[in-house]
């Protein structure tokens, strides 16, 4: 974990209530797909945690949805705005021990942290398949980016306005012999995926956070290996240790 001052270099709407913010610093501090940052917003006690959906040495991008006061303020930030950010938070996905054809499943804003994972897996010569689930066509985000790294991307929408009508678990039916899963989405969605998949994998969780760096025990989760902090030992947990 490091504290860095980033400047906003891009902040644009990509779908109703959904935005992309690109941040620049001398060192971005993200080393692994699935890590997150915690942004300080003036006037608020708690920072706001966001997964990183793209990063290189000196920049990172977050895709965010406006849900409350903090994200509303973010959506109005202009280019050049300086932000106090804690970066390099959380464990991120472990890509070392996964098979060659993992399945990546994201739901809603949960597609964000899986994008750099998809990129890394593809670049390292693996051939991930991707399922992205949304409520409706207008909520689709990051699809182009996924398609640029992977040519097997399935989109589902609950209302059928784009891609396959249904849920991500319906799309899983089409895919035989999936042996490893990377997943991020609502807890309910992830549980369905896990139950359907019956295979090992890694799941990324959200929790309301106090600090975001392990000092307050605000975000604990019971696991088969004892109590773990979503912000420190997580947000990514191995399917073997998750208690649903």
């Amino acid at each position, binding site marked *: *974990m490091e*504290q860095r001052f980033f400047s906003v270099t891009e902040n644009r709407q990509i779908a109703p209530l959904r935005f992309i913010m690109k941040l620049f610093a001398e060192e971005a501090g993200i080393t692994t797909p699935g890590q997150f940052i915690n942004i*300080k917003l003036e006037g*608020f*006690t*708690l*920072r706001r945690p966001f997964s990183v959906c793209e990063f290189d040495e000196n920049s990172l991008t977050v895709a965010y949805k406006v849900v409350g006061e903090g994200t509303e303020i973010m959506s109005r930030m202009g280019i050049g705005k300086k932000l*106090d950010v*804690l970066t390099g938070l959380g464990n991120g996905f472990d890509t070392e021990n996964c098979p060659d054809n993992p399945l990546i499943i994201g739901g809603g804003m949960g597609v964000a942290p899986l994008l750099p994972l998809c990129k890394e897996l593809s670049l390292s010569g693996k051939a991930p398949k991707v399922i992205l689930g949304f409520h409706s066509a207008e909520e689709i985000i990051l699809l182009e980016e996924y398609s640029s790294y992977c040519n097997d991307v399935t989109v589902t929408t609950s209302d059928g306005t784009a891609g396959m009508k249904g849920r991500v678990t319906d799309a899983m039916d089409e895919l035989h012999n999936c042996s490893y899963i990377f997943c991020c989405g609502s807890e309910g969605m992830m549980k369905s995926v896990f139950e359907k998949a019956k295979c090992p994998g890694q799941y990324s969780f959200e*929790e*309301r*956070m*106090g*600090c975001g*760096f*392990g*000092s*307050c*025990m*605000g*975000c*604990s*989760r*019971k696991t088969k290996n004892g*109590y773990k902090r979503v912000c*420190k030992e997580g947000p990514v947990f191995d399917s073997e240790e998750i208690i649903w």
Partner: protein
Amino acid sequence: MVKTAVELCGITLDNPVMAASGTFGYGAEFAELYDINILGSFSFKGTTAQERFGNPTPRIAETSSGMLNAVGLQNPGVKKVLSHELPEMKKFFKKKVMANISGFSVEEYIEICEALNDEEAIGWYEINISCPNVHGGGMAFGTDETLAALVTREVKKVAKKPIIIKLSPNVTDIKKIAAACEQAGADGLSLINTLMGMRIDLKTRKPLLANRTGGLSGKAIFPVALRMVYDVYEAVSIPIVGLGGISSAEDVIEMMLAGACAVQIGTANLTDPYICRDIINSLPEIMEKYGISDIKEIIGGAH
């Protein structure tokens, strides 16, 4: 050069700034960021006899200039603290640490003290009789002067370290409770713990915290903490550790003028993990600005 050293129950602190229990873990996360030996000291996470998971999540909510927490004393239990957390801590923290002790019965407080008595790294016990987030737990002791005195008296009998009783602000008359603790043998007092509060989620129409209520901390409560320290200072003659919403060197001085001989920083560590370092670094300059050459001399200066 201004002087920043203060004394707390016979132990000298290089400066009055400590980190508050529950917001600083056992120091490890902060030691990665800066050398935490610059602190006066810190109080580690509330420790119970047995391991506790604490409350279900969500445990955290935001409020204007503050936050609610309902962690519910998650901790590994005193044995593991002794065998794992403290040995780890001693690798990077060379000063005396304050042990925050939480219990559900007088026996439990005693059991924990006895277990920690021979640990040299511990300078003081901070007896938390004020946690609002555990049912049937500590706060009952902190809201009744007879019970508060009882815990104090019994713990004092076994404790081999000075005992600092951490008081609850959720009371009608904190002076009475403070005086009862002093009479029962407390070596010092720390105040305040969190104020009981709540938030409701308009979308679900249910309390935001799984525990329904939580403890309010942060800048919002600073004037309440200050008033209580001021009042308690007039009611007792043992040292007071003042905390609640402190987030700047100016706040430290204000709290000490009210009567605190040392202060703790809690929530501000979560907003800004470098805050204790920054406060300690700016303290000399702010002291000079207000004509203070020796910080000890301003303790209780507003009376």
